[in-house]
């Protein structure tokens, strides 16, 4: 079954470019909100690759994994934003370089 007229290579290329942009953002930004956004971009890129592969072979597994990635992203962002509130409360800044020491 071939429902896909777009070459799979090109979708995977877009997906890997999105992932690379997200990873670059993760490395160059120090604001924790931007770090969380970069994580979202990276998860989204991975989900795009899964859905594209699922569509290419006509299997539902790609979209099933997409939903699991969606769940992981939702749980991660809920806990991450709770941590953002704590960091802002404790350090009065969102710069992660101020919070790089562990207690002990």
């Amino acid at each position, binding site marked *: 079954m071939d*429902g896909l007229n777009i070459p799979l290579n090109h979708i995977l290329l877009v997906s890997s470019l999105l992932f690379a942009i997200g990873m670059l953002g993760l490395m160059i930004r120090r604001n924790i909100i931007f770090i969380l956004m970069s994580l979202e971009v990276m998860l989204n890129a991975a989900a795009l690759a899964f859905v594209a592969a699922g569509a290419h072979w006509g299997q539902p597994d790609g979209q099933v994994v997409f939903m699991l990635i969606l769940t992981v992203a939702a749980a991660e962002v809920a806990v991450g934003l709770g941590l953002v*509130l704590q960091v802002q409360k404790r350090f009065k800044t969102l710069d992660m370089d101020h919070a790089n020491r562990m207690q002990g």
Partner: protein
Amino acid sequence: MLEIGFFYTAATVALVATVMAMTRANAIHALIYLIVSLLAVAVIFFLIGAPFAAALEIVIYAGAIMVLFVFVIMMLNLGEKGDKQERQWLQPSIWAGPAVLSAVLLIELVMVISQTSGPVSVTAVSAKEVGLALFGPYVLAVEIASMLLLAGLVGSFHLGRRYLERDNLEKQGGQ
């Protein structure tokens, strides 16, 4: 092929919007670009024959998760300068970029809808197949995902509750 053109337009919009989101200084501006990027990815999902994934992308990613970001940024931004900032955000130079990018997506949507025998008819994997797979061979993964969501709920409640309680304690101590 028109469909290929749609795909490259949406992919370009997604990449440009993501780069813009990663390079903004203001978190809200970045968030607007990120929403445009997610919408573009949803268009790609639609074009490659995954309409259910496209709908979920818009409802959960661009809707729910981004609203969480907006809430937290707005909670952190409380202050007397909020009004001035609000007026600054309404300047056209700030929303022009996201508006142009999402207008491209809107034009694409109108073109897709107006042609009857286009990419709309392509449904490689229907929502029914996904549902059957999800609650058939993948039912254990669904259970694990539900436990993950419960853990996320409890964890974020814990973190947020301590945030609020300390706020109240400080207020009482100050009085």
